[in-house]
């Protein structure tokens, strides 16, 4: 919506603008610049204070670590050659879990849309499953699947799946009856209604479901790694905690932050691209 209107103003912007409009535009730009620079100031300020307090002993670097120790830890992981193994393991599990969860979620939502009676039957089960903290199922997964990577991925899928189903199904069900009536008057089959109306109209909902489920998948994967793994960032965090190496814990958390943010932005980028492509 926002994008659309900004596109419009851009298109309709007159070649020559009034002085007031120029002032208005520069005001907006200044504000934007302020917001962005404040973000950097906070990040850099935080890192500097952290380092400073650790050095002068306000906080105990053994417990709270410090930016320089984090960097050193990451470097030593790199030198050992295990840095990318851990990152790669976690990333692989997350991507696979995310894709599986999303595809299965959309597929199951489609099936439930197609069979309204099934939708009604399963509704309370979905609600309960949604309310259930999926992490509680961890031990069961380990017993059933084994203490392997498959369990970790299953955890990631499990956590994101129900939300994806519910969000996407909601999107499907929100397509107005009169849009479907239009298709019916044209003699459309259910499949045509699904493909030509329901799916394309719910792309925005699906994209926001994806953004939600990326975050959920990370939770599932890290918890899964806590429980079973021999490698990965979640493993490093647990291991670091057990041997009281807080530098390792902090370093892994920071790597995790960066990866999670990166993945979120990739999904958001695809969302933008798809919405643009859909309109052109």
């Amino acid at each position, binding site marked *: 919506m926002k994008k659309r209107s900004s596109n419009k103003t851009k298109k309709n912007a007159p070649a020559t603008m009034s002085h007031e409009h120029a002032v208005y535009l520069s005001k907006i730009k200044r504000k934007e610049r302020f917001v962005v620079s404040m973000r950097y100031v906070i990040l850099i300020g935080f890192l500097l204070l952290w380092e400073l307090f650790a050095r002068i002993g306000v906080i105990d670097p053994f417990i709270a670590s410090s930016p320089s120790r984090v960097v050193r830890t990451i470097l030593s992981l790199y030198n050992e050659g295990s840095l990318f193994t851990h990152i790669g393991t976690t990333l692989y599990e997350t991507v696979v879990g995310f894709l599986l969860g999303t595809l299965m979620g959309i597929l199951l939502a489609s099936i439930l849309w197609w069979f309204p009676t099934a939708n009604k039957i399963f509704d309370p089960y979905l609600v309960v499953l949604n309310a259930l903290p999926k992490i509680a199922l961890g031990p069961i997964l380990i017993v059933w699947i084994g203490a392997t990577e498959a369990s970790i991925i299953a955890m990631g899928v499990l956590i994101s799946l129900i939300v994806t189903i519910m969000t996407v199904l909601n999107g499907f069900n929100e397509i107005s009856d*009169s849009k479907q009536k239009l298709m019916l*008057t044209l003699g459309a089959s259910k499949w045509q209604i699904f493909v030509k109306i329901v799916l394309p109209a719910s792309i925005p909902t699906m994209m926001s479901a994806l953004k939600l489920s990326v975050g959920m998948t990370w939770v599932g994967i890290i918890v899964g790694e806590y429980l079973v793994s021999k490698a990965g960032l979640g493993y490093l965090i647990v291991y670091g905690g057990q041997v009281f190496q807080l530098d390792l814990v902090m370093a892994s958390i920071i790597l995790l932050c960066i990866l999670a943010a990166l993945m979120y932005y990739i999904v958001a980028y695809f969302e933008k691209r798809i919405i643009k492509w859909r309109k052109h």
Partner: protein
Amino acid sequence: MEPIIVELKNVSLIYHDPFAETLAIDDLNLTIREGEFAAIVGPSGCGKTSMLNLLCGLTRPSSGEVLLGGNKVTSPGDGIGYMLQHDHLLEWRDVEANIVLGLEVKNMLNEKTRAYALDLLERHGLMEFRHHYPQQLSGGMKKKVALIRTLAFDPTLLLLDEPFSALDYQTRLHISDEVHKIIKQEHKTALLVTHDISEAISMADRVLVFSDRPARVKKEFEIKLNAPDSPIARRQAPEFRGYFDSIWKEIEYREKALQ
């Protein structure tokens, strides 16, 4: 006389829901002839939309027969174009992709039919908006695009269910004029449902006044106006007032009966 296109014979329709059954239409008889422009006015909830749904084949009558060109209507076919109250252009499709939706759904989309749809666009002054998206069009233009989408698969009968009710008054006058022109130029038979008596008289050759639910034809008016064949001009005809008063009385009579 022109041949009969649509015929309703003793049609009744009952809706069932968990709380009650509703007799929406009872023993309705109605014929529409080729090339005719008929309008239906009637009180809210009397069963006008239900009747259009029957004609289109979206619902089946509880009893009686719905005939299109002599054949029983059983499901939405290619012979009928139904224009709903809301235009429902698909916002992710441009104008061209929107107007071929019906052809696409009916598996009739090929070079010839696409050319026909584009020709409609051209002839009715919308060619320059061919690659525009619905959100870039005005309300009136959207209606015209929706009409062209309905005409693109060349139906014999057009059903219009309060197509202008979402528009402001000025646009409404203007668009009803254009829609009328398009329908006449394309030689279509049309059945318009509206709440607006003036609109009905200005556009139609025949106005049917429906009774309260269950719907029946209460009174029919052949509209003969001494004016050029355009709704705006027809509103100026000396006979217009008389028709308006008679139809108004039919509806007012009902209001009194209700109280």
